[in-house]
């Protein structure tokens, strides 16, 4: 038997450095992550082969659920405050200062103008669960047009003041089972206020031209 039998050492790797790296990256991703905006309805978007990503700029989202109810959401608290002040002047809704501030953080809303005050008076949790009729888009009673028009004007002012980098990108997010007339009303409203370019939110689907090439 050999005398110098090697002693069995279990090699231990010092994990400290790796742990440091892992948590550094973790911290970075947590800080850069943006909270997913809460939506009043869950929407199942149709799939498409489009690979364009949603632009970074502030978005004005028109949400249409499967029943055709329309909700509106716009980014930027400065813009929202300016917008609700304008709307309250043009179409008196009797909103107090406090209610206007509530609007800036309220997220997506789907109520006609005459119900906005009582909707804003609800608690945050109630607001999400209460049944709302949606923003009216009929040609006789169209409130969507003024909202979007004024929101774009407000965002444009904010851009000139240097508070936001870009103008709004109009985004349409609709459920795949939404009947066409509801979509048509929204699109016609957009065309009427000279918004001819907008984006449809879709989920990813394989492009047959590319899969064939592989």
């Amino acid at each position: 038997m050999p005398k110098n039998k090697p002693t069995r050492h279990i090699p231990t790797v010092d994990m400290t450095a790796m742990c440091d790296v892992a948590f550094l990256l973790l911290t970075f991703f947590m800080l850069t992550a943006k909270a997913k905006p809460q939506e009043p309805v869950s929407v199942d978007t149709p799939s498409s082969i489009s690979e364009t990503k949603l632009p970074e700029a502030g978005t004005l989202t028109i949400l249409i659920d499967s029943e055709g109810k329309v909700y509106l959401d716009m980014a930027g608290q400065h813009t929202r405050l300016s917008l609700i002040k304008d709307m309250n002047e043009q179409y008196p809704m009797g909103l107090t200062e406090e209610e206007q501030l509530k609007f800036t953080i309220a997220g997506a809303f789907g109520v006609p103008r005459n119900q906005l005050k009582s909707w804003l008076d609800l608690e945050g949790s109630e607001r999400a669960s209460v049944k709302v009729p949606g923003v009216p888009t009929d040609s006789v009673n169209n409130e969507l047009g003024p909202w979007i028009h004024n929101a774009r004007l407000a965002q444009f002012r904010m851009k000139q003041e240097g508070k936001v980098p870009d103008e709004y990108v109009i985004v349409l997010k609709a459920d795949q089972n939404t009947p066409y007339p509801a979509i048509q009303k929204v699109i016609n409203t957009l065309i009427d206020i000279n918004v001819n370019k907008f984006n449809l939110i879709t989920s990813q689907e394989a492009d047959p031209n590319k899969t064939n090439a592989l």
Partner: protein
Amino acid sequence: MADIQTSERRAGQPSRRGSPSRSATRVDLTPMVDLGFLLITFFMLTTILSKPQVMPVVMPDKTPIDDPPAITHRQVLTLLLGANDKVYWYEGITDAQLDSTTYDADGLRRVLLEKKARIDREFGKVSRSAPGSPEQKKAISKFTVLIKATPEARYKNIVDVFDEMKICGVDHYVMIDISPQEEAFIRNPAGGLQFNEAEQVAAAYRK
């Protein structure tokens, strides 16, 4: 580094009986690293990959144009998006024959590609400078598709049709409102399309 110094005595001091041994306790950090990377993966996936895709759409302006582009009805294919995921289509205006198909790969796509190939053979392509680069010329097909949705269509159908336009490389397509004549045509295909060309142009440009 990850050692925890259990002994408070300085090195060199003689060890007393009964005192704890000087060997440092090593904490195994491997599970912590595992957890760290698991969370990293989670945050990376939720931030980067959850960014939604968008499909940019440009709709025709409502202002009527004085000089509509000259296209013959033989270059035009009209799609009528009907109920229950069915798509009706007809070519041209005069003697239009209504046919129906599905949104599957061998349905609408075959119709579009066949028609496009036929028109490219018959009329050739137009060479036009590609957007953004004045030197590069791009061959553009004269094939034109009019997309008209009936009230029974659903949103998915519209996105599917726009997708097919992209897949088949249709350069000219526009989405416009359906006319009562066409709705009657779907109900009664044998009756033919009661349409004159001026009405078609007027419908297309919302005069």
